[in-house]
């Protein structure tokens, strides 16, 4: 039992934290939001150059990390800084799937930051069900024709490619019969739009899109295991990001309580707020332990891993809501304004519950998995 970071990881964490602290300003985030891609080109390049994308891959895959704790510490720092560069989508999801399904040649470019692969999996009626794939891929003489629509494809306007899930057999929510296809973004028809919490996403129209044979990644109809595994890693990443967001929010709120005076004394001297803030802190420590639990069980047997996925995401969702609501409340009016730093962090943390299954979804799933 050991809760210390290795020296390498400590260095990565320190370096990343320093870099983000020096680089990420409200102006940078605002101009990223207003840009056409919804991202900061400079920040992406900077992170890639630092090797942050590489930290999400194992040495076998051409990276220098890739374990659960590498993901956790990377995304905790990204969350702390409130950045919304698509490392989760392009690194953990698309990158992880490509690496796992044997498209090794691309991974090098992904790590370098030059090839940017969005991940198009969710669909309008799918809500949080990972196996929900209504989009179909039909074999043709020289490849495949896709039919369907993907929703909220994160960072598509920033991507050069997109990894698309489509069904080559089975019913809409079957786990078997799901295949992955890699497409260049150019020529695709989509509508993109900004997101609460930063960045842009798109609704992607795949109706009648034809792709060549070699667009298929991995075995036909056999993507499920890799999908579920990469989803578990994504939940670890977003949970760690949520933890980082909580820490920054906690720091802002504590500082505000220490300095803001009302009725003649710092509001942090009011016992009712002290006790509530103590409860917030306790819950953030719970969130930290939940992230550690998931990060440490990503490579275990499936049921253990997935139980931790659902336990962690459930707890993160509950604590996230508490942290958002209490921090805004303790700030008062200023906490509701978009220009104060809290606003962006609070929105981003709120949105965590709308990805990869919300609090209730994972509570039910935890019960099912525990009964199994």
């Amino acid at each position, binding site marked *: 039992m050991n809760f210390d970071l290795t020296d390498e990881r400590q260095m990565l964490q320190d370096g990343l934290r320093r870099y983000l602290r020096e680089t990420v300003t409200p102006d940078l985030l605002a101009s990223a939001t207003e840009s056409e891609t919804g991202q900061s080109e400079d920040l992406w390049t900077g992170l890639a150059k630092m090797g942050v994308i590489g930290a999400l891959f194992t040495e076998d895959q051409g990276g220098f990390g890739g374990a659960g704790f590498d993901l956790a510490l990377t995304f905790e720092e990204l969350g702390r800084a409130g950045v919304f560069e698509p490392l989760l989508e392009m690194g953990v999801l698309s990158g992880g799937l490509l690496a796992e399904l044997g498209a090794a040649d691309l991974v090098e470019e992904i790590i370098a930051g030059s090839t940017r692969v969005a991940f198009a999996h*969710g669909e*309008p*009626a799918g*809500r*949080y*069900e990972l196996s929900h794939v209504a989009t179909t891929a039909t074999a043709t003489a020289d490849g495949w024709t896709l039919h369907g629509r993907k*929703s*909220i494809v994160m960072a598509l306007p920033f991507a050069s490619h997109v990894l698309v899930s489509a069904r080559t057999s089975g019913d809409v*929510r079957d786990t078997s019969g799901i295949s992955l296809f890699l497409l260049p973004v150019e020529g695709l028809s989509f*509508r993109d*739009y*900004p*997101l*609460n*919490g930063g960045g842009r*996403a798109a*609704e992607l129209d795949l109706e009648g899109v034809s792709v060549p044979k070699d667009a298929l990644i991995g075995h036909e109809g056999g993507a499920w295991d890799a999908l579920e595994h990469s989803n578990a890693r994504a939940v670890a990443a977003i949970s760690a990001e949520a933890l980082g967001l909580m820490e920054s929010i906690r720091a802002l709120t504590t500082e505000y309580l220490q300095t*803001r*005076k*009302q*009725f003649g004394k710092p509001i942090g001297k*009011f016992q*009712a*707020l002290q006790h509530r803030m103590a409860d917030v802190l306790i819950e953030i420590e719970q969130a930290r332990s939940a992230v550690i639990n998931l990060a440490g069980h990503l490579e275990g047997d499936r049921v253990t891993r997935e139980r931790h996925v659902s336990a962690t995401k459930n707890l993160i969702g509950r604590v996230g*809501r508490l942290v958002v*609501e209490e921090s*805004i*409340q303790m700030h*008062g*009016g200023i*906490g*509701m*304004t*978009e*220009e104060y730093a809290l*606003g962006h962090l*609070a*929105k981003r943390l*709120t*949105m965590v*519950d*709308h*990805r990869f299954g*919300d*609090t*209730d979804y994972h*509570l*039910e799933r935890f019960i099912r998995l525990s009964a199994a």
Partner: protein
Amino acid sequence: MDLNYTDEQKAFRAEVRAFLEDKLPKRLSDKVAGGKRLTKADYEEWHAILNERGWLAGNWPKEFGGGALDAVQRHIFEEETTSAHAPRIVPFGIAMLGPVLQKFGNDAQKAHYLPRILNGDDWWCQGYSEPGAGSDLASVKTSAVREGEHYIVNGQKTWTTLGQYANMIFCLVRTSKAGKPQEGISFLLIDMDTPGITVRPIVLLDGEPEVNEVFFDNVKVPAENLVGEENKGWTYAKFLLTHERTNIAGVGFARAGLASLKRIAGLEKDGDRTLIQNPLFAAKMAQVEIDLMAMATTNLRILAAAAAGQAPGAESSMLKIKGTQIRQEINALTRQAVGPYAMPFVSEALDEGSNVEPVGPDYAMPATQAYFNNRKLSIYGGSSEVQRTIISKAILEL
């Protein structure tokens, strides 16, 4: 004990319903129901319709052109207009300033300002809060120095709701630094077109510039714009705050919100079922509905006491806290209900007549916005913390 409305009250309710059926423009109720942005003209249109019927100022006495409705009638009116998705009545002139002028204004002020509020000639906004003061309203710093027939006003107000639409502002200003903080405050009416006034919008979490900062730089205000006596403004301010507390429970809003939540939960697919069939989600909805059923009765109990002439005291603090909890919980559940489509933020889709389609179902983005926007309910008008302290002192005697 009788939980039913009297025959007179039922008749009044029928009258309000018929009026709404007949006069509330569908264009407006569609916007409200759909969470669309209301323009200044939208509010003015609705105010004019209400004023024609004599119900714009339900709380005012007949002599000033009001509806002279009692507390229960006002509640019925609120309930019906809210569930019909009518725009809210902008409260600053009607609910706040009007009663203050009627009680403390001089004859000239009453004769000049009250009709203008009803006619829509003036759009008032509120200059109470200042940066860094929060719930500590008595710490007014904006100064008004008497020079001949004018006051020279300097300072800053904040959280001024819909100040961007206003041509008039009523302000708490400091006219003396002697004595306790409450003692040197005056209540001043200021024309927003006076040189030296700047309005800066504050964008809130939902992306909307609902509130503003208002800066005063040597603003010259005629001395006749003083309400009541100099340095007695705190009395008028407290009187105004009591009146602001009408409909503090927000029963109508909560009911409309719950109905909308149920509709959404019935539409949202959740695996093989709809969300309303998800037992955990159904349980949360049921619990908040049960809370609302009880709170609505608490509200009626207090209204009945008020209609019988008892002054509502710290009970309104209880109603504000519980009403807020219920509305915020409904907002949170609605946000949860819309699923992944809570994420897109397409501001233009909220404008009437824009051709921008919403992303996902049309109810999704307003759900997220309402969640963030209504965090304010527990902050403004005396935060929930301030209300708990009031309850603790006034009722529990701790």
